[in-house]
């Protein structure tokens, strides 16, 4: 009898220890949370040298930073003028790209259109978007928190993001981005104001692409919501991600006039016109 009791006690001990171990999983299961597999290394699917909205890019094969290449978001009159001025600077190679100085992040939503590779780290309480180029790290909180109140936030490159899971779709909102002061969306010179807000849905398609559907609202820059879709494709298993120290050997500083210099190995400009 005593032996039977001991066996039951032992079984109870094992089960209770396992229950304790499984508690976090059970609590997520209570929320019906089944996280998707976004593991591995990804790269942007759309080409065009980083043009942000390729669906409206003209010419269709045009690359960001090339003269005459632009996109057509629903811009307000003022913002269309700003964009045209930047396009004119692009045409004479005088549009400084903020990330060329190797000191600041690309920011959101531009970080969805960068070269090199990406990682998407999915955890129950937050998702991280990590870009090799930059690098940039974006945190999207899914732990139930709300966006910070106006007094508790300031404009940043990546902004403030919160979201939730709708089955295997990450739904999130991003606000409080620094906008045109320090970021561009691509090298065509497209910018947004610091009033921009982004609502996004992110999910894996049947074809295995990671799809991000963005609805960008900006009461200053846009006349209506701007719908942009971007994709990522997974690279082969085993692909590694490397360090990216942009300032390590930056031989292309930007002058105050926006000209990109070329430095010789001695650190002095070799541009004849300089």
């Amino acid at each position: 009898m005593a032996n039977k009791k001991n066996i039951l006690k032992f079984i109870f001990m094992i089960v209770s220890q396992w229950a304790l171990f499984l508690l976090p999983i059970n609590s997520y299961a209570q929320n019906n949370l089944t996280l998707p597999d976004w593991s591995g290394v990804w790269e942007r699917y759309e080409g065009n040298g980083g043009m942000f909205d390729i669906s409206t890019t003209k010419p269709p094969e045009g690359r960001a930073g090339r003269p005459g290449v632009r996109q057509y978001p629903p811009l307000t009159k003022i913002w269309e003028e700003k964009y045209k001025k930047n396009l004119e600077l692009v045409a004479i190679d005088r549009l400084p790209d903020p990330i060329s100085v190797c000191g600041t992040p690309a920011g959101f939503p531009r970080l969805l259109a960068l070269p090199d590779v990406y990682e998407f780290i999915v955890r129950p309480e937050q998702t991280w978007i990590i870009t090799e180029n930059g690098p940039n790290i974006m945190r999207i909180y899914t732990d139930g928190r709300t966006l910070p109140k106006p007094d508790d936030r300031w404009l940043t490159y990546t902004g403030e993001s919160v979201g939730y899971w709708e089955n295997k779709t990450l739904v999130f909102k991003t606000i409080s981005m620094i906008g045109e002061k320090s970021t561009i969306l691509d090298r065509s010179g497209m910018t947004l104001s610091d009033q921009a807000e982004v609502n996004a849905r992110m999910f894996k398609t049947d074809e295995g692409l990671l799809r991000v559907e963005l609805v960008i609202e900006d009461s200053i820059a846009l006349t209506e919501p701007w719908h942009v879709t971007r994709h990522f494709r997974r690279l082969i298993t085993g692909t590694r991600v490397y360090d990216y120290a942009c300032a390590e050997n930056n031989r292309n500083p930007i002058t105050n006039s926006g000209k990109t210099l070329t430095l010789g190995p001695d650190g002095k400009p070799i541009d004849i016109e300089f």
Partner: protein
Amino acid sequence: MYYHKNLLRKIITLAFLIVNVDIAHSHHSSAMFDKNDIRHVDAIVKEFQWANPHVWIQIYIENQNGKQEEWSIEGLGTNGLFRKGWRPNSFKPGDIIEIKFNPMLDGSSAGGFIGAKLTNGKTFGRW
């Protein structure tokens, strides 16, 4: 039927993937290079700078007077190049190479890398 549809969709997606892979990106504007001028020369490697945001190949090219001139040839970043088969020792001081590049518009002794071929036949970039 469903299987065939799915297969067709996958083939179309794959075709798009192949066509849409972005092959090059510069950390800064590349407008200083003359895309309409391709120089194809023999050169001797002086130094290979394997560093971000761009690799640089310092080379000697013989000028019209038969004198060796140093040129700076700019490539892409290390990470993307590594994934394309480049290595930190792809070019060694003293290597004799054939190299193609877009020279600077203003005539400075620098250019944007297009491709290179080593004496053992190995090629890099577009060749």
